[in-house]
């Protein structure tokens, strides 16, 4: 297998804080990878560097064999990196339909055709089960539905790498169950990088887990290895016992 995404010596500081510190990371095509770690460990900063929301101070990022370190964010999205935001940021004043039509019309080579946009947008809404709410204003949807809409926007980009930043935060148990099934479905044609606090979701979905602490990778391995890793338990699981559930 070839690596879809690799980072070498990736670093980013905010003032005196080393938010991401010399990170070496590799992600294989087709896997579901979970990134865990205590709050402030640098997980969101790390994926923000990958998708181009921030520029790194040092290091390189390679996506599908191409050096994308200096590439602007929108070009990375076009290469196939999609990011769904931790804090829901759907376009609240636009309809759910328009929210997904925006990514759909960009991926179409023939975006002028209204039929094609309509087809693609409805398909994306159907995959997350929101097609019956296409004309509702996104801001008036229930919170769980907004999270799903956010995922639908990511899906509509037809990504090769989908980065999900704490997607289950604030969802009910039933919604989480549906969500896990959805991610499995997505993973059939995309690589998934999942930042997640809910350990049950992580253990159920991830093929490998990367643990961040203080801006560095503390450990990496299969779920069982991570569960048995003493350093991880100390740094993360040990301090938040409820997360072990």
């Amino acid at each position, binding site marked *: 297998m070839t690596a879809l995404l690799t980072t070498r010596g990736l670093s980013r500081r905010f003032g005196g804080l080393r938010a991401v510190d010399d990170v070496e990371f590799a992600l294989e095509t087709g896997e579901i990878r979970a990134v865990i770690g205590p709050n402030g460990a640098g997980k969101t900063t790390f994926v923000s560097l990958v998708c181009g929301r921030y520029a790194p101070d040092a290091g390189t990022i390679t996506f599908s064999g191409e050096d994308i370190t200096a590439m602007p964010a*929108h070009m990375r*999205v076009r290469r196939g990196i999609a990011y769904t935001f931790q804090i829901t940021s759907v*376009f609240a004043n636009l309809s759910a*339909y328009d929210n997904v039509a925006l990514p759909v019309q*960009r991926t179409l080579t023939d975006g002028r055709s209204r039929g094609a946009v309509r087809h693609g947008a409805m398909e994306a809404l159907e995959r997350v089960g929101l097609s019956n709410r296409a004309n509702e204003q996104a801001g008036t949807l229930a919170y769980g539905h907004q999270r799903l809409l956010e995922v639908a926007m990511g899906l509509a980009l037809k990504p090769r790498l989908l980065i999900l930043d704490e997607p289950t935060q604030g969802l009910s148990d039933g919604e989480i169950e549906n969500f896990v099934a959805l991610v499995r479905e997505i993973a059939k044609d995309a690589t998934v990088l999942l930042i997640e606090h809910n350990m049950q979701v992580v253990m159920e979905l991830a093929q490998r887990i990367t643990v961040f602490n203080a801006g560095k990778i503390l450990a990496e391995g299969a779920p069982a290895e991570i569960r048995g890793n003493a350093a991880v338990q100390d740094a993360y699981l040990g301090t938040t016992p409820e997360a072990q559930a």
Partner: protein
Amino acid sequence: MNWEGPTAKVYALHVAVVALLVGLNFALPEYHHGVLARVLVLAVFAMGYNVLFGYAGLLSLGHAMFFAAGLYGAGLPLYHLGWGVPAAFGAGIAAGFVASLIIGLLALRTSGVAFMIVTMMFAQVFYLTTLYFGEWTRGDEGLVLQQQARQVTLGAQTLDLTSPATRYLLAVALFAIVLLASVALVRSRHGRVLVAIRENEERTRMLGYDTFANKLAAVVTSGVICAAAGAAYALLFGYVGSTFASVQYSILPLLWVLLGGAATTLGPLIGTLFMYYVIDIASGYTSAYMLVVGAVLILLVLFFRKGVLGTVRERWVGWLP
């Protein structure tokens, strides 16, 4: 807002508005005939402003520069070089294109309040420049374009831009072109992206859109429309002066658009028409027109943020573009 909405209804409404304006040519008394011609040209200015402010969400305080670029771009070659009307009109639009491209490339490096101040300062530089080159522009006093220079010969026909009916119908024609173009724009892919940028620029970028390029396109579209209005103003009303480059003419389109309804296609016309007559009527009683402008601005942002058509769309007619 739904872009796949009732296309036929939308175009029928706008064509009806244009038809009504054409019909008024034969019905209006002389005074209002002249006023409406002027209002239509200024409404084109407001529509240009609306593209950037209403749809892309960029509040510029320097649009007088684009209007004046069209005004001088058309007026100076006609006055000094004896260019014909069509060439002068084209020169006005070209001047607006160049000005808005340069300003866009510079000012879009900033955002929010800094964008407002930077655009205001560049416009101030332009205004002062028109004063500095008073030898050619005659500054505040301005240039009067002579009647014989404002004729267009089409084969055997001669269009006299100083005749009221010709002037009115040309103003309607320009207005109609820009109106229908802006309807098409806001219903296009690009229009949807501009609204997305207004709502959340960071999110739009993360959907793979080059937001800078889209905003630059909006600045240039807006600048060219405003310049077309300025060029038409010079040619139809025969006057080119620095006043039109002053900060007041950057504030007025903002006022008109806010009043009529930002991000509505017909709002700029309603706002311009209403404000023009309010000031016209108020000046019959008092010379304190600035008081009216100031009070309306404050009342609008306090109590009526969506403007006339914005409110109508929200409450009653959801399909209005």
